[in-house]
């Protein structure tokens, strides 16, 4: 207790400078002492001398008192800090440059780290999230495939590793509003989904255990966001009815505000998944994902081997549907942010490299300053300061720089995060809910502290070699002659090499990502995306319950669209182009050997006029006509990939495709081959695809594409109107031009954001690296003015001087660039996952980047070289 008290008082003592009290006290006691001695017969002078002698001197006494008053180390620190502040204020140019560089580096790193933290580090907002796993099927065609409902029931029944296994999927439903029906995103889950996650509604209750049984009363949970925006946060919402897909549904609760489940977001309503559809009855229809809670102490591997065992049993039991359908179990966290992980880690590396360059640049500035202050240090050392005491002075200055730069960086970082969030399209952000409440939390601040400390350590270590006893003695002896210290030249040039190599790595990364982005945006679509308007259309399945009704409605809708001014043609598909490879079917060919393998092909229903609207190329045969309806034999158009893969060297026209059992009503005749239209995302591969005429396989919803003669943007508002003229109760979603749709697609966004962010980092790195090189060469030239003067006086030509300086810079740049190339080659695999049709060791990129960096370096060293060459020998010699 008393130690604590005295420590605290000493701590306070470090900040008060008043010594008035001790001066008075010592003086008073001296007087008392003198009085005593005078009484004993001494003269006043003798008495005073004696008193001071007994005191051991006034100043040593005060010094001893001072040491007790404060904590000496802290006192020194306070002194150093005051001196460092004065030093930094005296050199505003140095201070501002260093702070700006540090702030940039720290801001970039911390902002990116905040995203990494939100997506990858922060535990999922569920109860013991480490025990949650994502369960799916796995086949040679897909890494993580959907689960079929029938398989799910068996896995749930037979597994011994999960306390619960639940399912979910994500789609939309129509909801009536005053201005016509609206499509709302819906999460469909099994009844135990929320209790498995450990999430409880904040209002009302969870689904009943039998809520997902076929025929159970329809219930729904509201997302917090929908409760607030659609229902104004009404407290009496529980028990209200809402019409979802023409079905009265009771709202039984509201989910917590911070609830999120990225794989099924955004969802406004969560409803129990009742096995009432056609798909749930067929084991070969896969439309679900699973999420499970592991039993205590069960590992993910054990869970996988257990489900794998069940999957193998099912494969034997149902060879027709389950051949090659295995199990996949992954930690849930990996599935939720797995897609974005490589991008985030790469960006973090990029930001880290930028920070490295910034720190190295500041270090070399610190080094130059140490060089400039070597006389000051030599004198302080001669007056008795120990090397460690001198070094502490520099360390304090480094720490102050980092605190100021880091503080500024952190402040800007908050805005940088908001800016980065704004750059993510709203639709993308909605499916990445973990980014919604991104903050500068304790982990992010800890990260900022750690990198700041590392930077401070670097700055503290940089001048260390300058401050040895021997070096200081040399400095004092050196007198006024200034010669670029060899230690500086050695370390300073090493720093420049590090900078240039780092800049090279970042530039190569940016170059590769830029090239990859170009390839993504210029990928062969096999249709013309310009002058296309698109819209998703959904009618109620209850009103259009027969094929004939659906065909009639679609015909009327298309002709209503076609009659709009400016529309050249229109068509529909069951799945928009450039979305994803999926909605596939297993097919089999009449007259070809079949061994039960799954020939998985993309499957689309398209209207007559669809291919013409896209302006897709017909390879052979014919496109569909309006006459291809249910009264005619079934026909199918295949893409070139399907023809090449299954009919190599044969003519597919006239051949028949059926389902895996070749059921008579599944047989369709191939009437045409169309070019490889890009159905999947921009960076997905082309898969075999088959197209059926809408009129032979109609549906109550479709994706509309409209070819316009003028700007497609202008026609968007009238599309919905034309559709509602036919039926006002049809929901229309997302009117957008095809080019915008492609531009905003997740694949384009991912590649674009990677290329732009890394490009930004690389540009900054190039700037900092070149400034660093310029600084080193300029400093070296300024230190060699005398040498240059002598050389010129002895007859050296300007050209020789140019060559001398450029040679020094050239060697440094060359080493830096070569080191950068080697580092890029070594780190190529790290970026591989993010590249599309671009080899990670792309020779042209390397060559171009090396050229750019070389030119920039040449420019940076040309200026100091010119300065050196313009030295007047007489002045240079006289100046020293």
């Amino acid at each position, binding site marked *: 207790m*008393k*130690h604590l*008290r*005295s420590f605290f*008082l*000493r701590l306070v003592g470090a900040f008060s400078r008043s010594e008035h*009290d*001790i001066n*008075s*006290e*010592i003086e*008073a*006691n001296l*007087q*008392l*002492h003198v*009085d*005593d001695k005078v009484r004993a017969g001494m003269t006043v002078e003798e008495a005073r001398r004696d008193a001071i002698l*007994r*005191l*051991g*001197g006034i100043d*040593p*006494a*005060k010094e*001893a*008192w001072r*040491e*007790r*008053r404060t904590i000496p180390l802290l006192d020194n620190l306070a002194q150093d800090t005051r001196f460092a502040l004065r030093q930094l204020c005296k050199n505003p140019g140095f201070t501002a440059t260093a702070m700006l560089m540090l702030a940039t580096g720290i801001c970039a790193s911390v902002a990116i780290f905040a995203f990494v933290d939100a997506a990858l580090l922060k535990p999922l907002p569920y109860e013991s999230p480490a025990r949650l796993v994502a369960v799916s099927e796995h086949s040679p065609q897909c890494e993580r495939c959907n689960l079929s409902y029938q398989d799910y029931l068996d896995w749930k029944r037979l597994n011994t590793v999960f306390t619960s296994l639940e399912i979910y999927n994500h789609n939309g439903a129509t909801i009536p509003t005053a201005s016509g029906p609206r499509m709302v995103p819906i999460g469909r889950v099994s009844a135990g989904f929320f209790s498995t996650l450990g999430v409880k509604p904040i209002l009302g209750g969870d689904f009943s255990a039998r809520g997902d049984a076929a025929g159970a009363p329809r219930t729904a949970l509201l997302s917090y966001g929908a409760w607030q925006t659609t229902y104004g946060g009404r407290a009496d919402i529980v028990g209200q009815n809402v019409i979802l897909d023409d079905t009265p549904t009771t709202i039984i609760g509201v989910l917590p505000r911070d609830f999120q489940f990225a794989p099924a977001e955004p969802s406004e309503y969560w409803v129990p998944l009742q096995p009432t559809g056609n798909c749930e009855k067929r084991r070969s229809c896969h439309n679900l994902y699973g999420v499970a809670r592991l039993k205590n102490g069960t590992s993910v591997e054990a869970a996988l081997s257990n489900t794998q065992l069940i999957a193998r049993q099912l494969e034997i039991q149902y060879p027709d549907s389950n051949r090659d359908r295995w199990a996949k179990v992954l930690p849930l966290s990996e599935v939720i942010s797995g897609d974005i992980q490589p991008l985030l880690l790469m960006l973090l590396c990029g930001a880290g490299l930028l920070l490295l360059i910034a720190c190295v640049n500041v270090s070399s500035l610190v080094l130059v300053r140490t060089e400039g202050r070597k006389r000051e240090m030599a004198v302080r050392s001669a007056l008795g300061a120990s090397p460690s005491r001198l070094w502490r002075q520099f360390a304090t200055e480094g720490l102050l720089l980092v605190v100021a730069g880091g503080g500024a960086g952190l402040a800007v970082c908050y805005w940088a995060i908001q800016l980065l969030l704004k750059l993510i399209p709203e639709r993308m952000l909605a499916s990445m809910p973990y980014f919604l409440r991104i903050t500068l939390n304790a982990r992010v601040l800890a990260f900022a502290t750690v990198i700041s400390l590392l930077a401070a350590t670097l700055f503290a270590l940089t001048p260390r070699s300058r401050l040895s006893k021997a070096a200081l003695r040399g400095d004092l002896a050196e007198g006024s002659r200034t010669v670029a210290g060899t230690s500086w030249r050695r370390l300073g040039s090493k720093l420049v090499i590090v900078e240039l190599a780092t800049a090279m790595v970042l530039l190569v990364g940016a170059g590769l990502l830029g090239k990859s982005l170009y390839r993504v945006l210029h990928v062969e679509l096999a249709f013309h995306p310009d002058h296309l308007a698109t819209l998703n259309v959904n009618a109620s399945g209850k009103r259009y319950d027969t094929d004939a009704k659906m065909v009639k409605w679609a015909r009327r809708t298309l002709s209503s669209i076609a009659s709009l001014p400016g529309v050249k043609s229109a068509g529909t598909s069951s799945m928009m182009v450039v979305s994803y490879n999926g909605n596939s079917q297993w097919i089999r060919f009449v007259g070809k050997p079949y061994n039960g393998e799954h020939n998985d092909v993309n499957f689309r229903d398209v209207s007559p006029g669809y291919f013409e609207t896209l302006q897709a190329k017909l390879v052979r045969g014919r496109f569909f006509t309006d006459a291809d309806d249910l009264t005619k034999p079934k026909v199918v158009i295949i893409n070139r990939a399907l023809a090449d893969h299954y009919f190599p060297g044969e003519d597919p026209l006239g051949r028949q495709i059926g389902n895996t059992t070749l059921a008579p009503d599944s047989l369709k005749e191939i009437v045409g081959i169309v070019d490889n239209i890009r159905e999947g995302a921009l960076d997905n591969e082309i898969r075999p695809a088959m197209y059926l005429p809408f009129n032979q396989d109609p549906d109550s919803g479709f994706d509309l594409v409209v070819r316009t003669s003028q700007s497609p943007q202008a026609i968007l508002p009238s599309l919905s109107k034309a559709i509602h003229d036919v039926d006002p109760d049809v929901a229309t979603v997302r009117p957008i031009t095809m080019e915008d749709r492609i531009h905003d697609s997740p694949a384009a966004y991912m590649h674009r954001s990677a290329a732009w962010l890394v490009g930004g980092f690389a540009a900054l790195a190039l700037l900092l690296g070149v400034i660093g090189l310029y600084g080193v060469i300029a400093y070296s030239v300024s230190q060699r003015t005398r040498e240059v003067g002598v050389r010129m006086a002895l007859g050296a030509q300007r050209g020789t001087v140019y060559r001398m300086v450029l040679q020094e810079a050239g060697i440094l740049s060359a080493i830096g660039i070569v080191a950068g190339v080697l580092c890029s080659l070594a780190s190529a695999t790290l970026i591989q996952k993010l590249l599309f049709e671009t080899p990670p060791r792309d020779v042209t990129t390397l060559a171009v980047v090396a050229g750019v960096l070389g030119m920039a370096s040449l420019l940076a060293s040309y200026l100091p070289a010119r300065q050196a060459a313009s030295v007047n020998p007489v002045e240079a010699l006289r100046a020293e």
Partner: protein
Amino acid sequence: MGKKTEVWQGTLALMVLKTLETMGPLHGYGIARRIEQTSGDRLMLNYGTLYPALLRLEQEGSIVSRWGLSENNRKAKYYRLTRSGRREIRRAAQDWEEATAILACFLATPSPPQET
């Protein structure tokens, strides 16, 4: 014997406290003189060491100080023992007695016969 002993490390604080206990409030010079007198002038105090010792005791809360007037009307800083200071005396005295007792045991052991 003109040789005077220096104050042992760590004993000065106890001497100061004990002096204040016996004498009541006293200024620095008075404390120093009193310590020397109590030791029968066998102790030679460096008055300069007194200031950090007093400061430390004050920081630890064993004593408090106040400016006042000396008997011959000089301004002086007076130190007074606090209640926690009294407790500190008892504790420190006990420690000290214990230490001397232990040391006494060692000194009491007879020395071995010396070989020549």
